[in-house]
Every structure is written in structure tokens, then in C-alpha cells.
């Protein structure tokens, strides 16, 4: 149902069936490191390029979330996905593996909230029953596309942010999850994981045994021609799946949610451009968009900031967070400890990322790993997530364009399971 100028309120509850995250090694050492489902040991993940690795992360995040929801791909009606690469190649290529209708979305780093809003609206309107919302970003692929080659010895400015290597997926459904269903799907999931790990372990063991017999036979060559090139390739592929590449999934069978999160509405954002032209200062460029959407949300819904237990902006960074508070203060709205920024909080100070994390995977992985779990534990009752995006490409700053920002907000509330 349309509410006010830019917002909508769901007529029926849209439940978060499950969520799943995969992040890179640096993110695993960050502040939310303990909460991610899978932390990769190597951000190439056995692939030949970082773009392929990002696509694989995206794919596996969707697979993990669907499996955790106790569903098969047959049960998913629609996949909403997006990323930062040209022509959405990470999501599009990931979708080759699923025989499910796919809608590609792009709103830079705010793509995740765009996907969640659209998914909720589609389910609310009855166009779909189950929707996956996923986004991904990868430091190395983003760096090449938006900035410089990885090996270039330039200095990052203190206003710069670090693109998060991460993919996450939320499964939204009209059907209410049940405690038994949850338990079952978690068990099935961890069995699947265990089976996969055992498979990997066995493959690794076989490889080690082969190496041993070869060494005993006096053959010290690293690459034996015995098995042929194909076997060598297969071994390489298996090595990518070896357990040391995958961390233990945190969402074990023991995890039980007391509450279930539901999307109750949100606000679609307008493109806002305050004339910031420094492409290394995204926080400053996006803060006006976040403030604009936030104010519109409060006006449309008639709520006050106090009605929320927590308010998260996407990836404004440390300075952007200040600028956001500054803009709101001008409008007479006070921000307090309940407000935080996912990007600014993402990394620890000693990880030297200057402003913190950014990218389509930033707000996504924080929401799916951290915020949703706090809601499911019952710590937060009503949360507003304002993902923010800067709508520029590599050429527009060279054409002396300023940086437009956009921000979409969605509300998550909880319900006892």
C-alpha cells in the first residue's frame, strides 16, 4: 500500500526466511568476522580471475540461503540480484546455474535495499511467493573497474573507503517459517556441508597419499605427468574446495531463532546531488541522499527516530556518518547511539581502511550476518536500514560531472516464532 509520497507499507507480512553470507579474508578479520557464515581464506577462491570469484561467491550465497530456508530452487519464484561490475556480470553469470527467473538490479551500493524493497512489494502484491535478494562486491574487481590496477603504487586518500569482498543473500517469503521447519532445514544444511567437507577431505587425503607414494617411489617432481593434464586440473579444482579454503559454517544446527524478521515497508529514494565532485569522497556525496530518504521516510510514515531500536546507513563511512548527522541536525533531527553506519563499523581500526567498508556487499553482509541475527535474538524490535549508493562510473568524473547519490530504506520488524 502506498504511504505518503515515496513510501509503501506491506499489507501482509513478508518474512525473512533465511540469510547467508560469504566474505573474503580481510572481512573475516573485521568487526563482524565471527558472524559471517563463510569466511574465505583466499579471495580468488580457486578461480582464475577476481570477477569469476565474485560470481562464484554470489552463486554460493544464493545456494546457501535457499538451502537454509529449507527450500529447493524449484520453490523460488524470482531472483533479484545486482552487483557493481559492468552489465551486472557477477550476478548474471551466477544465474546461469539456476533455472529461476532473474531480474538484474543496479543502484550501486544501495542495490541490496532496492532488491529487498522490490521483493517485499512483489510478494505483498502477490506476484511472487518466494524471492531471493542478493548482491555482491569484490575489492579486487571493483578496484580494477573504478580505480587503478592492484599493483599500482599510489596512495589511497584518507577519504577513501575499502570495497567489501562479500556476497549475501536474503530469502523473502510470504509463508511464515516454523521452528520445526527451521530445525529441519538447518540439520539438512549442516549435513550437506559436512558431506561436502568430507568429500573435500577425502580428495585431499587421496592427493596426499598419491604424493606420498610418488615420493617413496623416488619421484620428486611437483607435477606428475602420470595423471595427465586433466587430472591435474581436477586436483586444482578440488584444492579450491579443500576445507582450509572454507571456514566452518557458523549457522550450525544448534542455532535457533526466537523471533522471525519481517519486512514491513520502506521508502524509495530520490537521486540527490549536492555537487560533491571528489570521487574518493563517496561518504560526503551520499550523505545528502541518505538524509533525504530518512526525512521522507519519517514524513511519510509519521514516525519519529525514537520509534526505531536501531538505524543503519549503508556505507557512508566515518566522515559520511558525521555529514549525515550534520545534515539531520540542520533539520532538527538528533541522531544518537542507536544510529550506526555499516561501512564505518565494518573493519577494525588497525585494518587501515580509512573510512571503512563500501560496496554492494557491505550493507548486505552486515544485514544478513549481524542485524538479522540481533533481530532474531530479540535484541532489536524495529530497524531501519538505509543503504546508500553513489551513481557514478569511471568516466563521469573525467567529464567533470558531480556525484549523484541515492538511498533506499526498508523497515524490518520482528515477530515471535
Amino acid at each position, binding site marked *: 500500500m502506498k504511504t505518503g509520497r515515496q513510501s509503501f507499507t506491506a499489507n501482509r507480512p513478508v518474512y525473512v526466511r533465511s540469510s547467508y553470507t560469504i566474505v573474503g579474508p580481510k572481512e573475516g578479520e573485521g568487526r563482524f568476522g565471527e558472524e559471517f557464515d563463510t569466511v574465505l581464506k583466499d579471495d580468488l577462491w580457486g578461480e582464475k580471475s577476481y570477477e569469476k570469484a565474485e560470481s562464484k561467491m554470489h552463486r554460493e550465497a544464493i545456494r546457501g540461503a535457499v538451502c537454509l530456508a529449507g527450500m529447493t530452487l524449484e520453490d523460488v519464484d524470482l531472483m533479484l540480484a545486482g552487483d557493481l561490475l559492468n552489465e551486472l556480470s557477477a550476478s548474471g553469470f551466477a544465474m546461469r546455474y539456476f533455472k529461476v527467473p532473474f531480474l538484474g538490479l543496479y543502484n550501486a551500493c544501495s542495490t541490496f535495499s532496492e532488491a529487498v524493497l522490490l521483493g517485499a512489494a512483489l510478494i505483498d502484491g502477490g506476484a511472487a511467493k518466494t524471492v531471493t535478494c542478493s548482491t555482491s562486491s569484490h575489492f579486487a574487481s571493483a578496484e*580494477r573497474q573504478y580505480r587503478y590496477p592492484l599493483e599500482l603504487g599510489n596512495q589511497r586518500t584518507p577519504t577513501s573507503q575499502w570495497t567489501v569482498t562479500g556476497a549475501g543473500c536474503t530469502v523473502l517469503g510470504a509463508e511464515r517459517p516454523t521452528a520445526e521447519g527451521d530445525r529441519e532445514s538447518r540439520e539438512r544444511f549442516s549435513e550437506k556441508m559436512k558431506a561436502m567437507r568430507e568429500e573435500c577431505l577425502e580428495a585431499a587425503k587421496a592427493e596426499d597419499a598419491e604424493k606420498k607414494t610418488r615420493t617413496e617411489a623416488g619421484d620428486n617432481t611437483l607435477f606428475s605427468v602420470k595423471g595427465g593434464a586433466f587430472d591435474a586440473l581436477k586436483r586444482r579444482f578440488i584444492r579450491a574446495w579443500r576445507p582450509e579454503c572454507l571456514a566452518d559454517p557458523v549457522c550450525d544446527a544448534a542455532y535457533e531463532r526466537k523471533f522471525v524478521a519481517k519486512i514491513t515497508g520502506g521508502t524509495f529514494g530520490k537521486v540527490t546531488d549536492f555537487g560533491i565532485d571528489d570521487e574518493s569522497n563517496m561518504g560526503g556525496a551520499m550523505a545528502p541522499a541518505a538524509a533525504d530518504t530518512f526525512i521522507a521516510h519519517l514524513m511519510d510514515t509519521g514516525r519519529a527516530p525514537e520509534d526505531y531500536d536501531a538505524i543503519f546507513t549503508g556505507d557512508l563511512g566515518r566522515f559520511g556518518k558525521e555529514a549525515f548527522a*550534520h545534515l539531520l541536525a540542520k533539520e532538527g533531527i538528533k541522531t544518537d547511539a542507536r544510529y550506526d553506519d555499516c561501512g564505518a563499523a565494518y573493519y577494525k581500526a588497525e585494518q587501515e581502511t580509512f573510512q571503512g567498508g563500501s560496496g554492494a556487499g557491505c550493507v548486505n553482509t552486515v544485514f544478513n550476518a549481524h542485524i538479522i541475527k540481533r533481530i532474531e535474538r530479540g535484541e532489536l524490535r524495529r530497524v531501519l536500514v538505509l543503504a546508500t549508493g553513489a551513481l557514478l562510473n569511471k568516466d563521469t568524473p573525467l567529464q567533470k560531472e558531480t556525484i549523484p547519490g541515492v538511498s533506499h530504506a526498508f523497515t524490518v520488524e520482528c515477530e515471535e516464532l
Partner: protein
Amino acid sequence: MTDKAEYRLYVKKNSPRSPMVRSLFAAFVVGGLICCVGEGIRDGISALFPSFSEEEVGAWTTVVMIFLGSFFTAIGVYDRLGRFAGGGSIVPITGFANSVVSPALEYNREGVFFGICAKMFVIAGPIIVFGVVSGIVVGIVACLV
């Protein structure tokens, strides 16, 4: 909503800045050391090949420095040095080598032809173009004078 011009001023004033003293010091020390390495190579070459003219020694020194810059870029060390030193590792000729080799490495996944060869000068292209054009201008002026 807030006045846009006022917000721009706020951003300009309050954005974090590079630590001036520390970054200048790092650039000075690293840049100076790279130049000293170059001087050492120059001395070494002129001691080994006494028959070389000064120009030849200079050219060989450049080639060796470019080799070092390329090598440390390829093994993934130069970008870390650059993160620390900034201008200290950009301004020397090794920084020029870095700006050619780093895109070549980055785009080798697109193949030799359209990756390495086509993208090699995406960063260093202006240096070659400015060098050639200004060289021709200087030459023509020298011809006329």
C-alpha cells in the same frame, strides 16, 4: 533541505586530510634511497665498463632501474612501498615502470593481445605522449633558432 553550497563548504572543511609531515617525510626518505640505489648502479656500471660514455652509463642505469621497478611490481611489493611512500616511489623512474607494468599484470587475464598489449599504457600513456610531443616541439624550436 540544507543549502547545497553550504554543504559543499562543510565537506571541504571537514573531510579528513593526509598527514602532511609524516607523508612528506616518508616520500623524502624513500625517494632519496631509490636515488641512492640508482647512483650505486651508475657507479657499478661505470666501474665494470670503463669504456662506456656518460650517456651510455646513464641509459644502462635507467634500464636497470626500470627492471627493478618492474620486478618489484610483478612480485607485489611495489604497491606496498607506494602505499607507504606515495610520491617517494612515484616520482623516480621506477614509478614510471610501475605505472606500465601494473596495468599489464592487471589485464593479463583478458589475454596477451587485448589484455597485456592493449592495456599496458592506460596509465603511463600520457607520459609517452607528452614526452614525444614536447620532444618534437623542442627539436623544431632548436632547428629554427
